[in-house]
């Protein structure tokens, strides 16, 4: 039933110890014509050193403005199986947990309607189902929804939120990353499925500053768990580490960015008021140190890939926010922030870019926040800055210059 191609270049990539994506494609190709042509096309790309996909087209599921990436092949005649080869993004379960049952269901759907090829997962977090044709999209959407799954985001919309494994299997999680992700995803279903923002808006949540989901680098809104209490120390276990050969001075004390740890060979002391909450000591002395409540999150905004103004990392907006269900404060912030952005943002301008264009003040005032030093690495440099009517009213210096 499926076409066979000679794939000498790709065959090369079936060698070697790391599991081979070529083998995967071949597995699917053995029983799926789309996958077979994907294999043939890919070999041609490898030979010609060029992509043969066309610039995306708009396809989708009724009632949704996104969730499907339209894809057509430049060489449709030669590879008819991939003439249409759309991707369906399915919103993953928070934390990327699965059961065999659920996975088999996904496989069944994809064997029936698609190429049999998937990505677990896309960089944003979605389940990526690679390759189907326009006619199948409605059915795919229906079957998934009948079974409790829904499409993920694409286009100028809220994107599928994602998170680290957090409280499900990590001792350091200071917030419920899975619940936050699930709750925000549900809250913003409309924004997720019906693109109405100037551009994409991504949310990533991690349980602590270790940031196992790259939240600070790949999310317009980065929610990073943190703590306010002192670090609890189990001295015996610290000594144990030392006994087992850890050089506490080198690996813990010297690497502390707050320069707030001391070790006298027997006791470890932390001056918590200088702690920067970086997590180094806690992770490297795993089990011996423990952050203590209050727990909450630092909320940062604005990270993204390089276009147009250069790659950004998210920056602090709320140094500390409590993160208790139903998460009203963060939802309220997201609403205000995206409203402001939708009003002032240009087409294809991320929220961080807009803030950089209009200035933090415009943004902070719009969302009802005051500036705090935690928002900056350092205050501004050159001595000219804007004043708004009223900034100097009432001689503000009088109150602190006592």
């Amino acid at each position, binding site marked *: 039933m499926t076409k066979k191609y000679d794939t000498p270049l790709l065959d090369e990539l079936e060698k070697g110890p790391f599991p081979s994506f070529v083998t995967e494609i071949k597995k699917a190709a053995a029983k799926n014509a789309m996958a077979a042509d994907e294999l043939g096309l890919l070999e041609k790309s490898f030979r010609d050193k060029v992509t043969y996909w066309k610039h995306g087209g708009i396809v989708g599921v009724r009632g949704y403005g996104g969730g499907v990436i339209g894809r057509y092949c430049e060489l449709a005649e030669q590879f008819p199986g991939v003439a249409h080869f759309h991707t369906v993004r*399915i919103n993953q379960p928070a934390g990327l*947990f699965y059961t*065999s049952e659920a*996975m088999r269901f996904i496989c069944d759907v994809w064997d029936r309607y698609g190429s049999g090829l998937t990505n*677990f997962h896309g960089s944003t977090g979605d389940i990526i189902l690679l390759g189907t044709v326009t006619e199948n999209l409605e059915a795919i959407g229906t*079957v998934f929804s009948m079974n409790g799954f829904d499409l993920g985001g694409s286009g100028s919309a809220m994107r599928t939120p994602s998170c680290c494994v957090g*409280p499900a299997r990590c001792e350091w*999680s200071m917030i419920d990353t899975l619940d936050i992700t699930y709750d925000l995803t549900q809250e913003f279903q409309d924004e997720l499925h019906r693109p109405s923002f100037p551009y994409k808006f991504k949310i990533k949540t991690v349980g602590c500053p270790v940031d196992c989901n790259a939240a*600070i680098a790949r999310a317009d809104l980065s929610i990073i768990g943190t703590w306010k209490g002192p670090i609890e120390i189990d001295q015996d276990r610290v000594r144990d580490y030392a006994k087992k050969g850890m050089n506490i001075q080198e690996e813990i004390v010297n690497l502390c960015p707050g320069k707030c740890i001391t070790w006298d060979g027997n006791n470890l002391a932390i001056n918590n008021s200088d702690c920067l909450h970086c997590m180094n000591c806690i992770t490297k002395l795993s089990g011996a140190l423990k952050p203590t409540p209050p727990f909450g999150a630092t909320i940062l905004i604005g990270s993204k890939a390089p276009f147009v103004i250069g790659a950004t990392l998210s920056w602090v907006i709320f140094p500390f926010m409590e993160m208790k269900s139903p998460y009203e404060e963060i939802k309220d912030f997201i609403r205000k922030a995206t409203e402001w952005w939708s009003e002032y943002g240009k087409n294809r301008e991320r929220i961080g870019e807009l803030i950089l264009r209009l200035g933090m003040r415009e943004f902070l005032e719009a969302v009802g926040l005051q500036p705090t030093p935690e928002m900056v690495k350092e205050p501004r440099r050159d001595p000219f800055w804007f004043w708004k009517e009223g900034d100097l009213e009432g001689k503000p210096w009088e109150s602190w210059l006592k």
Partner: protein
Amino acid sequence: MPYVIPDVVDVKQRKTDIGPPHYKNFLPPVIQKNYGNWKEHQILSPGLMVHIANSGDKIWTVRVASPRLLATDTLREIADIAEKYCDGYFRFTTRNNLEFLVSDESKVNPLIEELKAKKFVMGGIGSRVSNVVHTQGWIHCHSAAVDASGLVKCLMDEFIDYFTTKETPNKVRFAVACCTNMCGAVHCSDIAFVGIHTKVPRIEHERFKDLCELPTTMAACPTAAIIPDPAKKSIKIKEEKCMYCGNCYSVCPALPIKDPQNDGVAIVVGGKVGNLRTPPKFSKVAVAFLPNNPPRWPEVIKATKKIFDAYVAGAKKHERVGEWIQRIGWEKFFAVTGIPFTWQHVDDWTYAFETFRTTAQIKWVK
């Protein structure tokens, strides 16, 4: 939950905006019980760790490499194994690895044996190389200057020992992006690869009119190299201002930039996302161009090895690639890796000044 796929699908049954299934449906009972109550974990081997709850309960995780691009057959095989040893529970990591979640200690070793037998590759836990965050490449994207999965395969074949056994000073995060849209985490990775162009886009004036919007196209250009060409109802590109970034093509199909002869791969290094020790860091260019040489990209792999080996040889414990470079200095980085420093290494864009050495602090290298 019993999943059903009716033979005849009635699309009117479709509900919208139900969102993803609740994560609780997929958590093993031991996790449900000890959710948020973990005490600590121990790394038992590069592919095995155990998390211990305050209650004393434990869960074992066996981590397995995945090419991310998976056929349904493989996924079914995984499901079968999970059923056999994990009551059906497993997960993926944020870096595309697969994790079997074992609640019953007696099943850990048998699972590992079966995985070995089936040629699954275990590893990636601890201070070592883990899987590669990457993108679509020639598999699925119109924008790809290079393939992604192929490059990942070559990289991981090369560094596999550092996934399965050997240690590195700290975790080494690779990433691959097939174009400068950088859908991978390239801009903040220890060692990352990005497909780049080196020639100006070609303008298909006839198609421009129908397919592209003038203001959007102009706004897409980071260097304002695009100006209107009213006569042709199209645009012109000021060649001397074009950095071949390809962003104009992202918004306008009439500006193809792909070029088999002149596309290539850049290597950027020293980024990180975690807040441990030093703040998150951007990656910086180490090698501005290497040829796009499938299927094995030998030049890219060789260059990566130079960087990787220098890092492993030179870094102190817990130093990430960027922290190592920060300590030894970029002049030493280029000296110890043998990579030449070229015009392309010197920034001339928005933050150029911030990258210039505004100090007399210099290390002498031979």
